């Protein structure tokens, strides 16, 4: 076989490949089919052992869906709205801020001294402990002061000569992308504690829209910067240069030329981010209680609340899956048109 197609392949090899594909497709799709039919089964049909085909070996019913509709299984309407609001806002903000940052990192030179980064760390860390110990400020007060101080000092210091290496654009991009390596649980506990401290000083962040959304924006940014950087690198620079000759300001070049040209990339990035936020469990578990609970938490709760009522669990799972399957189809369209390829190279 030329490995790229089966033309030169023996008939046996060809049928083996097709068999393999069918086999894996069955493994992939059967569980999804199963959850779909189980959502339409009645309790006795579930507990009587496995049945496969509606109208043939069980009589489909809408019982599970009716239970959800009347609110027997928890607040589904509110949760779906929460998930949608948080997901769309976080994905939109992350795509916007991420592409701004990615564009800046592609088109403008940055020089950040490693020394000023270390100074930021030292002042934020030491300053927080110092203020907490000796100033009598509350914990949230110490945090805000230490953070602001560290930021201001490190920006000022960055203008002066410092020993140590200077980080260029590629290092900054690496820094952004490497955020993705952190196990979220490291930050999740700290955020939970920080948000509780701020709550004590009057700024409620736990179980609020902005608290959760901003966290999601922060954790989507690495992926957005990574994907969008590749789209921007691939854009022809001549158009922008022509605009520059005409003295068009940079922000107008970005909004009027660059963003429209990379619209397909923005759409794909938006959808990937939305999928990430929609499915995310850990942060939602830590940072929400009841008001801004998202879908994964509610779906996870279905299992423990009333025992294994699989028909209801299936219907709940469908709520979490179907929007993403619709999106996958759209994404698949985009992919076939060769759009995703640029982001991977």
């Amino acid at each position, binding site marked *: 076989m030329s490995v790229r197609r089966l033309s030169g392949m023996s008939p046996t090899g060809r049928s083996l490949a097709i068999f393999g594909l069918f086999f*894996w497709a069955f493994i*992939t799709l059967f569980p999804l089919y199963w959850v779909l039919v189980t959502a339409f089964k009645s309790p006795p049909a579930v507990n009587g052992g496995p049945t496969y085909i509606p109208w043939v070996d069980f009589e489909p019913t809408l019982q599970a869906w009716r239970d959800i509709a009347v609110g027997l299984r928890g607040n589904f309407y509110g949760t779906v709205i929460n998930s949608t609001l948080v997901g769309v806002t976080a994905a939109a903000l992350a795509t916007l801020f991420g592409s701004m940052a990615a564009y800046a990192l592609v*088109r403008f030179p940055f020089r950040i001294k490693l020394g000023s980064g270390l100074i930021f760390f030292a002042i934020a860390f030491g300053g927080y402990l110092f203020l907490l110990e000796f100033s009598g400020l509350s914990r949230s007060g110490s945090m805000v002061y230490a953070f602001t101080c560290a930021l201001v000092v490190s920006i000022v210091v960055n203008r002066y000569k410092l020993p140590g290496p200077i980080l260029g654009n590629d290092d900054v991009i690496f820094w952004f992308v490497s955020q993705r390596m952190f196990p979220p649980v490291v930050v999740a506990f700290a955020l939970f504690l920080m948000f509780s401290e701020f709550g004590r000083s009057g700024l409620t962040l736990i179980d609020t829209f902005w608290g959760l959304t901003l966290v999601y924006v922060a954790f989507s940014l690495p992926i957005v910067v990574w994907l969008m950087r590749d789209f921007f690198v691939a854009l022809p620079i001549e158009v922008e240069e022509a605009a520059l000759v005409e003295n068009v300001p940079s922000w107008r070049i970005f909004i009027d030329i660059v963003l429209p040209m990379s619209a397909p990339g923005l759409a794909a990035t938006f959808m990937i981010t939305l999928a990430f936020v929609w499915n995310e469990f850990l942060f939602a578990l830590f940072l929400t209680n009841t008001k801004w609970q998202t879908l994964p938490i509610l779906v996870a709760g279905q299992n423990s609340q009333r025992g294994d009522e699989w028909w209801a669990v299936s219907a709940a799972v469908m709520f979490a899956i179907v929007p993403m399957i619709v999106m996958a189809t759209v994404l698949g369209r985009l992919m076939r048109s060769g759009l995703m390829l640029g982001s991977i190279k």
Partner: protein
Amino acid sequence: MRNDPIKYLFIWPAFMIVLAMAIFPLIYSLSISFMHYRLIPPIPPSLIGLDNYINLLGQERFRAVIWTTSIIVMVSVALQYVIGFSIALMLNARVPGAKLFRVGLLLPMLIAPVAVALIARMMLNPTIGPLNELTTFFGFPNLPFLTDRYWALGSIIAVEVWQWTPFVILLMLAGLQTLPEDVYEAATLENTSPWRQFWDITFPLLLPISVAIIFIRAIESFKVMDTVFIMTGGGPGISTETLTLFAYQEGFKKFNMGYTSALSFLFLIFIIVIGVIYLAILKPYVEKRS
């Protein structure tokens, strides 16, 4: 590259959000990890230096959890890579209905891990699940898929493979499409067997992207929690407990925050060490090829 002060305006929003929501919590959590800090009972935190870290490293449960997580990551990522690469090769060979296969085969990675875990529990149910019917047919009724330690570990690995093989398929397929056609034509002219073509051309050319894919998958797998949380809750005993789940149990069941922060930092260090070793071992191969 042009210079324009507006560049700061472009980069600051993203920079500030990451700084405030990821870096600063990280620093805060580092400070807590040196303290004795419990939420319940609410005693004021006190600095205790490295005690949390020393305690943890001496704890057998911690070592068991690292071991469990590493097994899940190594076995599942290896399977994902092998299966994903094979499927990508099959898809790339122009089989009838390839477009349909592509959409269908990519579905699992877009589903919430929580939902995947619930579906898995349904499939693996020892009395009313469809898998039980299959194994009963072969003479093994009521296998303890989630209640025996080895079966449970295997089930979690299977679910991870089910969910994340599509990711490998997607990226390997993209990689395959960038391969130069003429090299294969030349190889076919010289009567090189397909098997040799694969090992001498396809595999080496795809080595850099393979290294990247395995790296991404391994890093992501180390964070696994939702799946295990729903499927087994870490049980039976602690035999399927992963690092993130362990941190969750310590933090939200015992409210021992200093200890949990120390735990998550050891976790971070562990991931960084593994990542650096992995990249250091494979770098010469990748560079030699490209």
